[in-house]
């Protein structure tokens, strides 16, 4: 999933002359103490490959959270309202967090400890994480007994047929497309040809692709092995949709849910109320708990506002939380620096995103590898880390694979950025001289946000030092990814960020670097088309052993960073989140990439 497009910035604040009187003194530093070591440990646990659980692991109920009590109302402060509630349309992370409470699919991630670190993929509505006998071409799922929608109707295989067939209908256009592509055995958007109108005009997927022999069995038949299917099915985008209650487009505003909570009311852009779902049976659910009676969401709460409210910890905010708002860059010091009691109310961890500065391979001057090497050496990472709020919000990335993805190699650092994050201008200048390109014009497109303005000036200054003629160009934040996603764009270098869809690099390397998928809007922003990379991607996709495939992906990652140099990895995104003092069960979940909403209780 790409990042950043939807951020809105409220940068206007009023300069009050009276504030001058107060502005006498301030103490130095922002107090953002180093959480690095802990974060690294948090991430390390992730690299240990996630196990695919069997029937015993998939039996409910979920392990109780120590000290948890039932009852109470949780206030949830969110910046963005939920644009989509239909599982098939859910892809972005804030809707993903909500989906953990209301939607269930065939598989899901079960926490194996109370720290948000250990996970295994287990059967959620299915009895196990899936069985395959031919290396991932055929997958068989059996549904559990006693599973129901919130309206009381039992969930059967017919609902799953509906769920997967409607993904081909044209109105489902925001969700993930992995499963559809695997079923149709194509790339890009061609999969829709398999079932152009979904199930709505009487046509259905043949048994050779999706088989539902009885009301409890779902069988997938793929032409090529897809060992990642249990991961993919755990995405909110593949959660079950009620066949009886399928209202097509309208389902997006009022879905029939399956999780421990159901939607009592939803006013888009304003508020949402979740209440307990009486038809949810904890004995069928190995993943979720249901402690809180009710959750009241308010939307349009900016990061500064949620941080200040939760920091103040008064009234309803004592039982307040935000699933997805981070502590804003300006307040990180106030949160982490002072009071130990405040710090105890925070959690921190990695987000799945890794940033990179793309080097446009379509421009002739940049096809010279020495020039790209010079850019890689010259590029400073410190300005980006500074702009996002320091070491608790970002850290130097070695490769494109995030610490939360299996295969991550912490020691990989070909350009010396971890040792010297300010860049190496002298070395870059020497390389540029060698290439005979001193004074080469580089058009640098940056996102016109306060952060973007700040780090782009510093990056431009560093590249200038290294002998480039840098031309900064601002791009409006709202259309940034559309502009840099065009193949024929004017920019030489530009930043982007990408996060894995599940903890395997198979959701990072192919979409970003497969040269055969270059198109307008494709996330291959650097337009790299390297024959060896393409071949290696195909080979890695066929490996069914998770450990071996992780190693293969990391090898491609290192080859790209070190030898192709189509982009320079910049930062691994991190975040700090805060909750009110009466919220218990606070855990940063690596798979969700934020606070785990399924285990919260009111103290």
């Amino acid at each position, binding site marked *: 999933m790409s990042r950043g497009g939807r951020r809105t910035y409220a940068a*206007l604040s009023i300069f009050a002359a009276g504030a*001058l009187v107060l*502005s*006498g003194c301030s103490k130095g530093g922002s*107090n*953002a103490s180093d959480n690095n070591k802990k974060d690294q440990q948090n991430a390390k646990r992730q690299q240990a490959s996630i196990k695919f659980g069997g029937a015993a692991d998939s039996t409910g109920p979920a392990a109780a959270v120590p000290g948890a009590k039932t009852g109470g109302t949780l206030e949830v402060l969110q910046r963005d309202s939920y644009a989509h509630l239909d599982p098939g349309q859910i892809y972005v992370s804030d809707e993903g967090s909500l989906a953990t409470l209301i939607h269930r699919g065939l598989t899901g991630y079960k926490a194996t400890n109370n720290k948000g670190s250990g996970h295994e993929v287990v059967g959620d509505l299915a009895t196990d994480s899936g069985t395959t006998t031919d290396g991932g071409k055929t997958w068989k799922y059996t549904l559990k007994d006693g599973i129901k929608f919130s309206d009381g109707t039992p969930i059967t295989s017919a609902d799953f047929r509906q769920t997967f067939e409607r993904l081909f209908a044209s109105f489902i256009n925001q969700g993930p497309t992995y499963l559809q592509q695997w079923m149709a055995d194509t790339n890009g958007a061609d999969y829709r040809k398999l079932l152009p109108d979904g199930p709505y005009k009487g046509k259905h997927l043949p048994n050779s692709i999706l088989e539902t022999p009885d009301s409890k069995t779902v069988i997938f038949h793929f032409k090529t092995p897809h060992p990642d299917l249990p991961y993919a099915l755990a995405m909110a985008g593949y959660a079950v949709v009620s066949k009886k209650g399928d209202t097509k487009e309208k389902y997006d505003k009022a879905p029939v849910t399956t999780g421990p909570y159901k939607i009592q009311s939803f006013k888009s852009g304003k508020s949402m109320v979740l209440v307990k779902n009486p038809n949810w049976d904890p004995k069928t659910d190995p993943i979720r708990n249901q402690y809180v009676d009710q959750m009241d969401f308010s939307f349009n709460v900016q990061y500064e506002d949620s941080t200040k409210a939760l920091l103040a910890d008064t009234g309803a905010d004592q039982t307040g939380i935000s699933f997805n708002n981070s502590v804003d860059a300006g*307040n990180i010091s*106030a949160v982490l620096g002072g009071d130990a009691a405040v710090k105890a109310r925070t959690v921190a961890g990695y987000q799945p995103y890794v940033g990179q500065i793309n080097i446009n391979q379509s421009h002739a001057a940049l096809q010279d590898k020495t020039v790209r090497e010079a850019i890689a050496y010259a590029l400073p990472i410190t*300005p980006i880390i500074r702009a996002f709020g320091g070491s608790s919000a970002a850290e130097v990335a070695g490769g494109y694979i995030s610490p939360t993805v299996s295969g991550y190699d912490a020691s990989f650092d070909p350009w010396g950025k971890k040792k010297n994050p300010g860049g190496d201008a002298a070395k870059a200048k020497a390389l540029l001289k060698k290439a005979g390109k001193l004074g080469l014009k580089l058009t640098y497109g940056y996102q016109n946000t306060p952060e973007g303005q700040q780090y782009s000036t510093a990056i431009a200054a560093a590249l200038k030092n290294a002998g480039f003629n840098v031309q900064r160009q601002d791009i409006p934040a709202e259309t940034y990814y559309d502009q840099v996603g065009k193949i024929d764009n004017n920019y030489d270098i530009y930043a982007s960020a990408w996060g894995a869809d599940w903890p395997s690099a198979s959701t990072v390397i192919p979409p970003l670097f497969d040269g055969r998928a270059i198109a307008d809007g494709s996330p291959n922003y650097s337009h790299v088309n390297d024959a060896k990379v393409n071949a290696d991607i195909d080979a890695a996709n066929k490996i069914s052993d998770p450990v071996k495939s992780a190693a293969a992906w990391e090898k491609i990652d290192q080859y790209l960073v070190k030898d192709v140099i189509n982009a320079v990895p910049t930062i691994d995104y991190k975040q700090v989140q805060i909750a009110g003092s009466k919220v218990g069960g606070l855990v940063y979940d690596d798979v969700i990439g934020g606070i785990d909403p399924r285990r919260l209780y009111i103290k």
Partner: protein
Amino acid sequence: MDGGPEPDTNTGTVKVEGRSPGQLMWIRFKRDRTGVISAFVVAFFFLVAAAAPLISKLYGKDPYTIYADVRPELFDSAGVPVQPNGGISSEFWFGLEPGNGYDVFTKLIYGIRTSLMISLAVTVAVVLTGILLGVTAGYLGGKTDFFIGRLIDFLLAFPSQLFFIASMPVVVSLFVSPRDQTPTYVRVVALIAVQWVLGWMSLARILRGTTLALREREFIEAAKVSGASPWRIIRREILPNVVTPLLVQTTYTLPYLVTGEAGLSFLGVGIVEPTPDWGQMFSKASTELVLQNDITYMFFPGVSMVVFIVAFNLLGDSVRDAFDPKTAR
């Protein structure tokens, strides 16, 4: 409001001496202590602005160096100076800017320079336009007066702040190739042009009124009768008599334009980083990063701007009093 000769009633001196209106004004101005102090303050600001490159050379720093990368030991990972009070030290007199770590002292004097240069240019343009159109409308009257009057009404009815914000990016993009960075001078010229087009009306209107009143006076009639050309009448008879409102208005316009320019940069449509600018420093000071971690940063740009604007307005008052003692106090 005419600046014609008046009997000198203030002094009961024995010796009668001929003095020009300008001399009288100067004498009265020198007696006004507030005015003199304000004049020195304003002159000091202009001097600092003019000598900014020299000062920064002596001081040994420039406003473009990113000290957060050059001297990383002075900053934490979020770019906030580690030393108390925003990193004020014998080396960095006014401290360092949170974020990229620019030197606040040189940034401030260069920022003042940018803002004052732009405002001065706009003032000159506004005054010239105001004289030309205002006096023409007042003296010629008739259709010319009607059309200029309607143009003034039309432009005055424009929501100028909104127009600035909407038109700045358009004006800028007209001149720049999509592969190149917007050069600073284009932004400067655009800022001047936009403020000029929407800034001359009030002066023109005042001059039109004054001219209209003067036109009917006997000495103009006399000049007309003796066969003077309209150009000569405007130049020799009318212009010297509108100097008072002109000067007074100008001394009020300049600080107004300085705050206007700062406002545009504050909103992000004026001068942008890394070019130093007064208003841009306020916008930096209002970010959460600065408000929470380094409130001292706001002190220098804030205090200097308040001092400048207050001094300039007091100066304007004194100038008016000196020209026109009857309306004073």
